[in-house]
């Protein structure tokens, strides 16, 4: 890209690399800058003053600051899927080919139709949307809100998925330092020399802080040289890590800090396999906030005119970027620090139009300088600005004594003093305290382990910053047990800081407090008149400080104006609560890699790859992927496949991976006694080599989980849980074992991932199993009866576990093998079963067969049902205590009219039963008063050749044979059904015992 001449770039100087020119586009126009520029400094170097339109009034706005506190210069950065709205031009690093567009204007920045809003300014006052758009109420959603949103927009989101990757990482250190100015570097030196593990975060891409623009002398050398020497020393220390482009944005419990590292935001797009940003959680024993201070504006009419800029920002642009925001600059200050701008401007060959100083007097040295350089010093304040979208032309000065003066200038530097960055220290609800000599809030308390140092602590001189930072670094290292020698602190002069507070200059015209939300001084006065005096009310009523900049340049001025109009002091008025994050953090960074298929972990069953090869359709069950059914060519839908699978099992043999069940080994002499206390039925009397169905309750008497438990040895049980509750049951059992029953000698081991488990079901099960297990194993009804369980040897010598249990109602076994053999077992079952017509089946067929058999599952174990509701009340032992026993006996839990499990089948065999349909007595109008329950599980039963289901129905078991009505308002289906036994298939259980 070829850019036009950089009309506002100084011939020399600055921390820019003139050998690396960069081309970029802003609002479609081509410009040039240098490596080391920000977008803002490059725009300034090209003489661009107008960069955006304001939020509410669409007023022309320019660049106000040179840092992350910027309220005005927000742009849409990049294009397409990478378009990022509301990006601060003042922190966006320039790269070759950068594209940016101004926001909130139409059709163009120079000719913004919405600027007409300024004419209607009287209705856009504080709280205008509460007042103006009140009536009629239904207009709000349809008309007012969309219109306001269009008019008062910030940037546009890309609307498409973010193509970049974000990372999350942890770091640990003794001492964490926020900020690399003199205080931060001195702290790092002291802590690092003491032997502490140090991390220093700097949000800028260059280390050094204010001296990068303001220079100074440290240890007798220019600040730049001291910074460079310090960085060399820190680099040589064993464990000091400096992270640039990294903003510490929050502090949380236990010394955990949040930081966002903009790893590759300075490039057009991240290099391959690299992330764009990284979210850090940094655990630090001690932290030092050396985040500096933010220069504050003075509120006066026209203070938002492009070309009005913070004095420190003027210095940053001139010194650090060799870019001149104006050629003839006026300065409006109420403090000594603002005067640095005069030296900077004169040093760069710029003209000073005038210095307006609100203090009663200025020093003789300043007077001498003014006389030499030929500019007037005016005692007073700026009362107005002439200019518009082309920038400042003239300023009006109200002189002390009442006279007025006019000054021609193309830029106005403003300094209203400095506000320490008290965010981090206040994030645990700490309230900063007022310090009179600097007329600013400083930290009063901080989260445990945190201190502030330097300007962030209200110490504004270079000498004090170095001393405080060094002392804080040495103390923090000591606190963490690092006793090395910190040496001597770097030294510098303590320059004077004198300030006369000035917040607001009364006058005609809009005087902005919050630039980003267009809140004016008169809005604050209005809020006070209407009774919104509390700072929290003021904030919400006027939206002061609620924009993306969080009021970094506006909050204190807003409080000061409120204090003045309500006749209170500023400390009495107080501050609002500070909350993280300190700077906006992209949601993508919080998500990190946890998006799309990586949103959560995926668990694959041992036979997954084999099932994939078979063309299985998978279903997500919690984290698991389970084979749902195995379609075959020619089958027209899932129902046809599932029906085939069920028929194949009932008529021959099939198998299904059930490894997702939770599996727990229970060992110890008291294993049986332990199980007696957690299940409603008894396990201590279970014979070795047998399995038993078990049901456990919550302590409140409601059913928690079910499964089979086998006794493999006198002191060894093996229990299974449902897939969904696998982890929770383990946690519950550990609670019972450790907390409630410590006297029992029992140990629990989760073996869910250690065993692959398959259900093999159907009349030909034994024929198939004989091909798998060692021929010496007796699988006959006598040698391995129903509910038998024992270790077996498989062909080839592998040890497995075999359980004669049946969920399908067929003759069935479940076989466990070490998980690594699961895939081989599936393949062998297929191979050995080929002559038998073996059919793999999925979770759908599993579900069909359990409904046909009337077994309860998740839809019935739904957190509201008791054992009796499920028809399992007889399992509740009366001879022992167990979890949930007493509460299960509560009146309402044993009431005769409870909804209990019952079978349901449509009277018209062609009707399709639906889960969730309500059960209503025949002839009654559906409604809450006639609702008697609902359908919980449904399937198409190949055996009965119709849809059947289970339901929870009031007094259901007493009403077998009754015709009732199902009401399904969602699908508009209503028809008669018969209540029946939940066991639709083989009610006497002959098949599973055979």
């Amino acid at each position: 890209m070829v850019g036009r001449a950089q009309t506002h770039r100084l011939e020399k100087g600055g921390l820019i690399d003139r050998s690396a020119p960069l081309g970029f586009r802003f609002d479609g126009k081509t410009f040039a800058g240098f490596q080391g520029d920000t977008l803002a400094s490059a725009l300034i170097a090209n003489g661009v003053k107008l960069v955006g339109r304001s939020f509410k009034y669409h007023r022309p706005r320019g660049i106000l600051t040179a840092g992350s506190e910027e309220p005005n210069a927000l742009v849409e950065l990049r294009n397409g899927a990478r378009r990022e709205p509301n990006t601060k031009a003042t922190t966006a690093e320039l790269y070759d080919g950068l594209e940016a567009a101004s926001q909130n204007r139409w059709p163009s920045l120079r000719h913004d139709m919405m600027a007409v809003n300024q004419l209607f300014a009287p209705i856009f006052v504080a709280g205008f949307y509460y007042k103006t758009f009140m009536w009629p109420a239904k207009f709000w959603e349809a008309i007012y809100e969309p219109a306001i949103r269009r008019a008062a927009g910030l940037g546009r989101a890309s609307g498409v998925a973010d193509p970049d990757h974000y990372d999350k990482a942890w770091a640990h250190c003794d001492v964490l330092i926020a900020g690399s100015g003199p205080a931060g570097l001195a702290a790092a030196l002291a802590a690092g020399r003491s032997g502490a593990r140090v991390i220093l975060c700097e949000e800028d891409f260059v280390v050094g802080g204010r001296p990068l623009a303001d220079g100074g002398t440290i240890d007798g050398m220019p600040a730049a040289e001291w910074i460079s020497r310090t960085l060399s020393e820190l680099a040589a220390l064993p464990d000091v890590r400096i992270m640039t482009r990294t903003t510490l944005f929050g502090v949380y419990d236990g010394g955990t800090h949040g930081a966002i590292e903009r790893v590759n935001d300075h490039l057009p797009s991240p290099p391959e396999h690299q992330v764009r940003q990284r979210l850090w959680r940094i655990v630090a024993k001690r932290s030092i906030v050396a985040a500096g201070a933010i220069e504050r504006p003075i509120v006066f009419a026209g203070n938002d005119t492009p070309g009005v800029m913070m004095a420190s920002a003027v210095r940053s642009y001139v010194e650090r970027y060799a870019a001149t925001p104006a050629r003839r600059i006026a300065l409006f200050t109420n403090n000594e620090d603002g005067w640095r701008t005069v030296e900077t401007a004169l040093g760069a060959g710029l003209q000073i139009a005038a210095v307006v100083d609100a203090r009663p007097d200025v020093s003789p040295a300043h007077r001498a300088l003014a006389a030499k350089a030929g500019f007037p010093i005016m005692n007073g304040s700026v009362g107005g600005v002439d200019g518009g979208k082309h920038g400042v032309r003239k300023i009006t000065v109200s002189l002390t004594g009442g006279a007025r003066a006019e000054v021609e200038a193309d830029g106005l530097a403003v300094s209203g003093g400095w506000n320490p960055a008290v965010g981090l220290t206040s994030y645990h609800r700490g309230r900063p305290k007022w310090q009179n000599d600097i007329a600013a809030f400083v930290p009063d308390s901080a989260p445990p382990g945190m201190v502030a140092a330097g300007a962030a602590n209200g110490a504004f001189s270079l000498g004090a910053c170095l001393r405080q930072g060094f002392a804080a670094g040495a103390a923090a290292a000591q606190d963490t047990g690092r006793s090395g020698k910190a040496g001597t602190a770097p030294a510098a002069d303590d320059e004077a800081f004198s300030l006369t507070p000035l917040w607001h200059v009364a006058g005609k015209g809009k005087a902005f407090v919050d630039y980003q939300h267009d809140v004016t001084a008169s809005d604050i006065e209005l809020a006070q008149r209407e009774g919104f005096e509390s700072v929290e009310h003021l904030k919400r009523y006027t939206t002061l400080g609620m924009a993306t900049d969080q009021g970094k340049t506006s909050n204190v001025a807003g409080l000061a104006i409120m204090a003045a109009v309500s006749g209170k002091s500023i400390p009495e008025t107080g501050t609002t609560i500070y909350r993280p994050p300190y700077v906006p953090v992209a949601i993508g960074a919080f998500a990190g890699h946890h998006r799309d298929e990586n949103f959560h972990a995926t668990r694959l069953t041992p036979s997954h790859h084999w099932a994939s090869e078979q063309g299985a359709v998978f279903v997500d069950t919690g984290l698991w992927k389970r084979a749902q059914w195995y379609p075959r060519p020619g089958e027209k839908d899932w129902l046809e496949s599932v029906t085939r699978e069920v028929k194949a099992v009932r008529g021959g043999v099939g198998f299904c991976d059930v490894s997702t069940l939770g599996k727990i080994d229970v060992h110890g002499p008291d294993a049986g006694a332990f199980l007696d206390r957690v299940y409603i039925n008894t396990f201590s009397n279970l014979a070795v080599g047998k399995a038993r169905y078990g049901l456990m309750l919550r302590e409140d008497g409601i059913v928690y989980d079910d499964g089979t438990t086998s006794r493999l040895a006198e002191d060894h049980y093996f229990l299974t849980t449902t897939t969904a509750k696998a982890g929770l049951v383990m946690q519950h059992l550990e609670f019972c074992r450790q907390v409630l029953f410590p006297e029992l000698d029992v140990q629990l081991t989760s073996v869910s991932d250690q065993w692959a488990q398959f259900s093999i079901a159907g009349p030909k099960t034994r024929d198939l199993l004989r091909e798998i297990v060692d021929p010496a194993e007796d699988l006959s009804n006598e040698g391995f009866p129903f509910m038998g369980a024992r270790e077996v040897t498989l062909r080839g010598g592998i040890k497995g576990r075999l359980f004669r249990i049946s969920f399908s109602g067929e003759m069935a076994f479940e076989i466990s093998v070490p998980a690594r053999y699961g895939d081989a077992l599936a393949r062998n079952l297929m191979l050995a079963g080929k002559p038998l017509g073996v059919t793999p089946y999925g979770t759908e067929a599993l579900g069909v067969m359990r409904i046909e058999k009337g077994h309860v599952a998740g839809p019935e174990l739904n957190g509201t049902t008791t054992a009796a509701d499920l028809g399992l009340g007889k399992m509740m032992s009366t001879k022992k205590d167990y979890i949930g026993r007493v509460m299960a006996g509560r009146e309402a839990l044993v009431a005769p009219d409870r909804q209990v499990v019952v079978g349901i089948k449509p009277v018209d065999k062609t009707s399709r039963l639906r889960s969730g349909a309500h059960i209503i007595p025949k002839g009654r109008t559906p409604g809450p008063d006639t609702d008697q329950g609902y359908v919980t599980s449904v399937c198409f039963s190949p055996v009965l050749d119709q849809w059947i289901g289970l339901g929870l129905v009031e007094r259901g078991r007493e009403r077998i044979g009754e015709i009732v009505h199902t009401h399904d308002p969602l699908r508009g289906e209503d028809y008669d059904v018969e209540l029946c036994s939940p066991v639709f298939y083989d009610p006497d259980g002959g098949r599973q015992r055979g």
Partner: protein
Amino acid sequence: MRIVCPFCGERELGEFTYLGDAKPVRPAASASEDEVFDYVYLRDNVAGQMSEYWYHGGGCRAWLKVTRNTLTHEISAVEPAAGVGARKVGA
């Protein structure tokens, strides 16, 4: 928040699961329905020091008794919860 597990050392909150008040003791088998009701449902809403059950599911699977200030999240003690919810012999 970070919890110093007596078995694993200092670990991050995400490894732990919260259960709640560690004060109630499970009543004897002979206890009345009212006593068990209190055990299951009645909890103090403490503003200040509270002993709580935490489960180190992401580590050693130990149940821990954590003494935490509910106002500041400051943790003053962590110990194994062995037997904390059990009736003491003779009680």
